[in-house]
């Protein structure tokens, strides 16, 4: 999204005539600066971004930050409620919950980000091809999209993930191949309208090939909605992963994830509520921040929102 200057993204809301001189007096700004200015105004999004960065540092730095090791069993200190030594208590094997939460976050965040990335790439490709070529290709891929959209996603996910002992990669792929549909539709619609613009005709007239036009000229123009969709997709994927793990079909222990930490918690909830509360809070806060971030990005990337 850096230096792309194009009609769609660089011509913001038309300035009233009286404003024209004021606009010219201001030093020119790059697209990134404009987006950043608008993003910064969304206070919740900025705070969320900071929280997410801290969270990511804590989780991915878990081997150095966490007070214990994630599979360190301490049978003298099982089922401890939260205390200064164990911030979030310990589980049946005396493993430190705070430590496991950090390690679990590593997996959950990775799954969320990779699954969203994967589904976005599939969706963008299908949408771009359908929108660009039109005709029978468009028709076929959109009918296929309709078929997949109509099937309830979670049951299908549950069936597919019951086939294998799910690893991180399997879960990422399975979530990815079942959540690309809305991206494909958005991208198709944008490509469909963008391809009629003059700069595409210009690119074609200087002899650009189809794939160059798609990837260099059209995709950057529809990057806004793709990016917002991908951001929200991270949150959705984290929730899906945790739901699958809760049902016992996600990534299996001993590798902790936020989902599988909750897997057996229902049975022991009454006596050890901290084992239920903290992993869920981690999911809630993370997804909440991701959604706020998505809102901020949406405002920032929307060319109809003025940056003044």
């Amino acid at each position, binding site marked *: 999204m850096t230096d792309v200057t194009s009609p769609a993204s660089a011509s913001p809301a038309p300035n009233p005539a009286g404003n024209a001189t004021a606009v010219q007096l201001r030093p020119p700004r790059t697209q990134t600066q404009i987006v950043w200015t608008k993003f910064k105004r969304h206070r919740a999004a900025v705070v969320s971004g900071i929280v997410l960065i801290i969270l990511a540092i804590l989780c991915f730095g878990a081997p150095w930050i966490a007070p214990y090791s994630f599979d360190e069993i301490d049978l003298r200190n099982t089922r401890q409620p939260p205390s200064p030594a164990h911030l979030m208590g310990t589980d049946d094997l005396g493993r430190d919950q705070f430590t496991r939460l950090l390690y679990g976050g590593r997996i959950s965040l990775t799954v969320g980000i990779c699954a969203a990335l994967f589904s976005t790439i599939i969706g963008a490709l299908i949408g771009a091809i359908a929108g660009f070529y039109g005709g029978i290709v468009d028709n076929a891929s959109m*009918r*296929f999209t*309709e*078929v*997949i*959209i*109509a*099937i*309830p*996603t*979670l*049951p*299908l996910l*549950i*069936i*597919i993930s*019951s*086939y*294998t002992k799910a690893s991180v990669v399997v879960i990422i792929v399975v979530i990815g191949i079942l959540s690309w549909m809305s991206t494909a539709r958005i991208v198709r619609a944008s490509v469909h309208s963008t391809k009629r613009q003059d700069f595409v005709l210009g690119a074609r007239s200087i002899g650009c090939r189809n794939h160059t036009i798609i990837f260099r000229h059209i995709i950057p123009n529809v990057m806004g909605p793709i990016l917002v969709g991908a951001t929200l997709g991270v*949150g959705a994927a984290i*929730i899906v992963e*945790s*739901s699958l793990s*809760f*049902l016992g079909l996600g990534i299996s222990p001993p590798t902790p994830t936020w989902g599988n930490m*909750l897997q057996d*918690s*229902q049975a022991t*909830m*009454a006596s050890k*509520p901290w084992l*239920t*509360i903290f992993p*869920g809070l981690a*999911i*809630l806060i993370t*997804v*909440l921040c*991701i*959604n*706020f971030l998505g809102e901020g990005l949406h405002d920032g990337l929307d060319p109809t929102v003025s940056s003044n």
Partner: protein
Amino acid sequence: MGRYIIRRVLQMIPLFIGISIVIFIVIQAAPGGPETTLLATGRFVSPEILEAYRTRLGLDQPIYVQYFRWLTTALSGDLGYSYKSAQPVLQVIAERLPATIELMLAAYLLAATIALPLGVYSAIHKYSPLDYAGTGLSFLGIAMPVFWFGLILQLVFAVQLGWLPSSGRETVGNTGFIDQLKHLIMPATVLSLLYIAGWSRYMRSSFLGVINSDYVRTARAKGLHERRVMLVHGLKNAAIPVVTIIALDVAGLFSGAVITETIFAWPGIGRLFIQAMYDRDYPLLMGIIMMGSIMVVVFNLFADIINAWLDPRVSYD
């Protein structure tokens, strides 16, 4: 309008065939097949018995033969027999359906009675404390993992306070209305959370869009009472897109029911599905997911029809 509906219904036929092919392939892709449940019992099963088992279920045929066999019987209204209980799939589903429909209806009613007034109020009193509270609530609702919300409710209202039963649809031997209602409260709340969050925001933005339109100004200029302007002229128009969304959202109910029913041991389709998944009960799985998909497609059509009916600007072409 009639021709529009007929055309849309006809378009659904290839869609259903496409859906059934995808589901069929996914279900049949299971490594090991249904005989794994036979082997999992731990008893010795000879290869001949396994072979006979597969032949009896028709699993020795190529997948397209199996699919066409399923399709032809399904078209005559017969979804086959459950491997596990040997009862007709339709009958097994029909037994569980009332519980699920009860849950879904309760969740939908609850969501509508909370979300719609909240949305209207938030739009009229923009930036009021309740508006902020509603926005915050909907962000929380969207980010909340459904199953965790269910666990927390159980923890608070069943374990700590003891006000509500933690699971099931009724207390054994005590099947009064009050008892059933008490069992329904928590699952319905859990299932409705996402819709309360979504619909209240949607109602709010739809209403805000309407408030500034010319016909609302005209209504005010005529000297109508403000309440009448808002609730008759405003609400009627703002409700159109919201009604459409409500019809479209039925699609997600099924996925939500799978999780909610699992947490609260609700004896509906969602739990039946999980059980069928572990049993590798192909015909039953096929029936359940097909039913879920049909529900999605039919309610999509409903949404379009309602939209075209309420909004005179929509053309039928």
